[in-house]
């Protein structure tokens, strides 16, 4: 990549990701409205919301742990932005190692962790309920997510480097497909979408968890959520579906893959009722667990004997 292009990349990547995320937010809201026979919000609505929140006063509750309360959203946002930057770097610029899959997994936990930190620091009993639910949920899906990535690592011959993994498409095999589906559901939970919007009411980013946040801090949460809408599907594309191209058809194909995942997420969101937290735990630990163990065994056999489609 040439130097000017490189500079352009760094200038564009963060605002670009945020804008893409806001558009994705709008799609989600618009589709729900159409189902309910309403017109729904205009395209720029999520942007207006963020701008408005930026101009508002920040109220910090008396009982809150002030520093943690203020820092938590920034930590979460930094996490997802870093993640998305890594992914863009790999997909668009395709440079050498700047982070491997382990780092990405860590970065993906950051938003939930920040949410738990922030809401428990707010000192509100309602946020506390949301916190405990979020915590249980994270414990539920995180194991499944890691197992799903282990399948990918086995499939790609022990690769940890994201750029190398992005060259292959592990989903084009039985074990890879299983892992991909489980990871998709984990992403659903990470995004706080139905059926896993247990800790966060759907109408607001979070009814319970974010009840005490206002103004710019709330805006940061909203931006974080928007960026997650870009970064997490993109991550799935990179890891499971062979990544993005930068030129011609491969770019179109890459966008197609991203849209496919977003559509899948919205479909799951709109056709499922909300589940209870114990149901979610059972689902992730038991059913997903079995599926993933099977996938790992298949993948191991496949890589040992060199059978690609297993």
């Amino acid at each position, binding site marked *: 990549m040439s130097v000017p292009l490189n500079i352009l990349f760094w200038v564009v990547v963060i605002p670009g990701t945020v804008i893409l995320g806001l558009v994705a937010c709008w799609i989600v*809201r618009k589709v729900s*409205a159409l189902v*309910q*026979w*309403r*017109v*729904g*919000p*205009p395209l*720029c*609505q999520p942007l*207006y*919301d963020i*701008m*408005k929140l*930026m*101009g*508002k*006063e*920040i*109220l910090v509750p008396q009982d809150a742990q002030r520093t943690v309360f203020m820092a938590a959203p920034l930590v979460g946002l930094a996490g997802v932005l870093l993640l998305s930057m890594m992914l863009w770097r790999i997909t668009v610029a395709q440079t050498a190692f700047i982070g491997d899959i382990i780092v990405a997994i860590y970065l993906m936990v950051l938003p939930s962790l920040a949410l738990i930190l922030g809401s428990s620091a707010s000192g509100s009993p309602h946020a506390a309920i949301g916190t405990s639910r979020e915590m249980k949920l994270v414990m539920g899906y995180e194991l499944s997510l890691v197992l799903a990535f282990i399948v990918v690592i086995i499939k790609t011959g022990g690769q940890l480097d994201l750029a190398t993994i992005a060259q292959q498409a592990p989903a084009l095999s039985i074990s890879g497909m299983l892992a991909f589906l489980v990871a998709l559901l984990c992403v659903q939970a990470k995004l706080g979408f139905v059926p896993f919007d247990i800790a966060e*009411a759907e*109408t*607001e980013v979070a*009814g319970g968890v*974010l*009840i*005490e*946040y*206002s*103004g710019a801090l*709330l805006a940061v949460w909203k931006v974080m959520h928007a960026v997650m809408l870009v970064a997490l599907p993109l991550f799935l594309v990179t890891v499971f579906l062979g990544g993005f191209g930068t030129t011609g058809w491969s770019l179109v194909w890459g966008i197609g893959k991203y849209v496919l995942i977003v559509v899948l997420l919205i479909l799951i969101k709109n056709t499922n009722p909300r589940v209870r937290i114990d149901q979610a735990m059972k689902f992730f630990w038991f059913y997903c667990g079995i599926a993933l163990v099977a996938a790992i065994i298949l993948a191991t056999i496949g890589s040992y004997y060199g059978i690609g489609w297993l």
Partner: protein
Amino acid sequence: MSWKIWSLKKSPWVFHVNAGACNNCDIEIVNLLTPKFDVERLGIKLVGSPRHADALLVTGVGTRQAVPRLKEVYRQTAKPCVVFLVGACSCGTGIFHEGYHVEGPVDKIIREEDPNAIIAYVPGCPPKPEAMISGIVKALSAL
């Protein structure tokens, strides 16, 4: 016009407070969400926490029992915020003016809490949903 006000107009999130009303205004407010009026197309959204709100839709006379809660909600709302008094009761206690349990009118109560509060009045008993939307739009364009 500063960008703060401009964006506030584009995305007013409202929180509904019933301070002792007859439900009429309240139902009409909920009606704003439903397909016929659908205020989400104007960026208006009912939110579940006063901290997220830019506008309070207050209905009702402000009864003695409700007044402390009303003040508490106003304190919890992030500023700048607009207080919309929806209906004759909250605008001036209306027909309940003489009631022994009535502490209103609501604008007086809000002013006790914050003398510089921005207050808009949407009279009517109950105001039609169209009137509420128009009231919100007018008050916002006057900012």
